[in-house]
């Protein structure tokens, strides 16, 4: 008897391609209100039911949602549909549409969302069983840094279960990795963690100054000033380079010179 197995074991090789991305699921939502773990879904017959939906980041870092819709067998055999939509869209709006991936002629289906696994088991027309077990990797939540925490564990889980071999793209020296306007508003998110050789900041009196990839030692003549902070003065005030450059410092013998809001040393 030829049973078909697509089992989830190794992230890299043994995943069912249709569900591979679920390992990095950020959330399982729209869980069916009544169906119980591992019980056969058999009613209401001939209706389309949303079993659950999985939200994940796709390869282009876009938040997407997989709706898992099941046409319960009745007069006809059942169909399991996977419909990939934008994360903010509603699965209900796609209930009767064709799935991006469909498993047809199903006699029965059971599923479970427990124990760090998403499991789906389908009995097909010829009684062959198709089963998927997709492990759910614990989500990494950034901790507030505290004594004894390392930079590595501040950035990433201590053990990475879903590592994929790929070329990491790093930003080259000189590229702006965090843009900050003169009014201290930040444009976009910081890319500085992707800098190949670290980054440096040009202090501007804001909580965050503009940053660039690479290394430029601060405090030297004609280079950026060093960041001194702003709370050591214990004063509630706004710093602006031309009015008060005490948020920055230079090496002995040099002075802070402002270029706009940015502090340099001369």
């Amino acid at each position, binding site marked *: 008897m030829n049973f078909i197995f697509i089992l989830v074991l190794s992230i890299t090789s043994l995943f069912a391609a249709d569900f591979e991305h679920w390992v990095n699921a950020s959330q399982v939502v729209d869980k069916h209100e009544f169906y119980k773990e591992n019980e056969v879904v058999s009613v209401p017959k001939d209706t389309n039911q949303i079993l659950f939906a999985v939200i994940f980041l796709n390869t282009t870092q876009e938040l997407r949602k997989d709706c898992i819709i099941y046409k319960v067998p009745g007069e006809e055999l059942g169909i399991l549909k996977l419909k990939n939509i934008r994360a903010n869209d509603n699965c209900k709006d796609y209930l009767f549409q064709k799935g991006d991936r469909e498993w047809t002629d199903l006699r029965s289906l059971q599923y479970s969302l427990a124990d760090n696994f998403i499991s789906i088991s389908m009995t097909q027309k010829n009684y062959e069983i198709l089963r998927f077990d997709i492990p759910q990797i614990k989500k990494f939540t950034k901790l507030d*840094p505290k*004594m004894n925490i390392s930079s590595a564990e*501040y950035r990433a889980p201590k053990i990475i279960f879903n590592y994929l071999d790929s070329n990491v793209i790093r930003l080259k020296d000189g590229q702006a*990795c965090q843009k900050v306007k003169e009014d201290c508003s930040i444009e976009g998110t910081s890319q500085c963690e992707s800098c190949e050789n670290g980054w440096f900041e040009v202090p501007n009196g804001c909580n965050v100054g503009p940053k660039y990839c690479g290394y430029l030692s601060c405090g030297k003549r004609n280079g950026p000033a060093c*960041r001194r902070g702003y709370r050591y003065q214990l004063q509630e005030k706004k710093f602006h380079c031309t009015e008060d450059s005490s948020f920055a410092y230079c090496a*002995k013998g040099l002075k802070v010179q402002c270029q706009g809001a940015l502090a340099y040393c001369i």
Partner: protein
Amino acid sequence: MLFFRNEKVEVPSVRSQANTSKLFAQVIFKAEKHILELWERGDKFIPKEGFECPNSLSFDKSTGRGFYQCQPHFWQCYWSGGVKKSPEIKIEVFGQTYHIEALPNFAPISEYSAENRFYELVDGENFRNGLKVDLSVKEFPNKKWSVVLIDSCRDTFLPERIYGHGQTPSSREEDFIWDNFDRKIFIDKWYVSNQQINDWFLKINQGHRVIKNKSLWANPAELSLEEQHLYCKSLGKRLLSSHLFDAASMTPINLSDPLNPKVLRPQTPWQRDISKTFLGMARKNSDYQLTPLDCMLAQVEGCADKLFYSDSVSWMGMNYPLGFYPESLVNEFEPKLNLKRSSKFLPAASLSHELGKREYWNGTQPEVTSVAFRCYEEVSE
């Protein structure tokens, strides 16, 4: 139909195979804590008599246990059977015992040995030099799971507060204070070691520079100032600055008051007034005899060589704030004062043994007294 039913008798076996896969994943998940313990606290697995790993690592009692934490070569040694004969990790799941092993699935590094490796160093989006390992469970042959262990032992967080720079100022105007609020700064706990720069040599295709003598791996790396910068940069880090060194080594008066602008400058990490320490006593009494405790706090001339022992740890987790090796520092205020000279090459009575004291280093390694270094990094958010 009956025929079908007969065939369906086999269905449970199908399920059991499917469940086997799930169980394999469950066993690996359950082993997480044990795998991490072996990686982060490898020292706990070393028996009193040490270990035998001629092809991966040498055991030396003068090397502290910190060296074996997050240590790729110890991982190699352990799974090669050098620490105990059966290195497998036993895990109980649903009342049954499973045996987890790392697999020697990675190419040998000829500079170290001809044996296959139990790991490979990899970079990811949010980590560098992670240890990629293949895990298997004896009870599930032909299945493996690749995971990455990150180096969570290397550095430690510098709490956000107001700090001072340099020694006690002679006037209020000279009292330089600064703060690191809203900055996430992490400082290496130890000097960069020969073992660490070996990995760097391999990465930059300078395998011929790899230090093969394993007994030297725990020693501080001897690089020129220029290469110290390059090494730290290659990890997205920076060579440690003098104001960060002071912050990390000068114990604040009140840890729970980070906004206190009165920043005292203790002369040693463990005692504000040096005259009350063995260093002060040695200054007064030329016959002062060093005790083992003195050498734990600050290795000075006359102390036995010891590295990677955490007896000298500062208030925030940085080791070697006084004594041990001269240390290279970037001084943003006075660039020429770029060396912490206090070290094991100077007698206890030396005036250099004092926090905040710095001298000049020209950037080339001296023949006798090697200059150590460490890195730090700021995480950008």
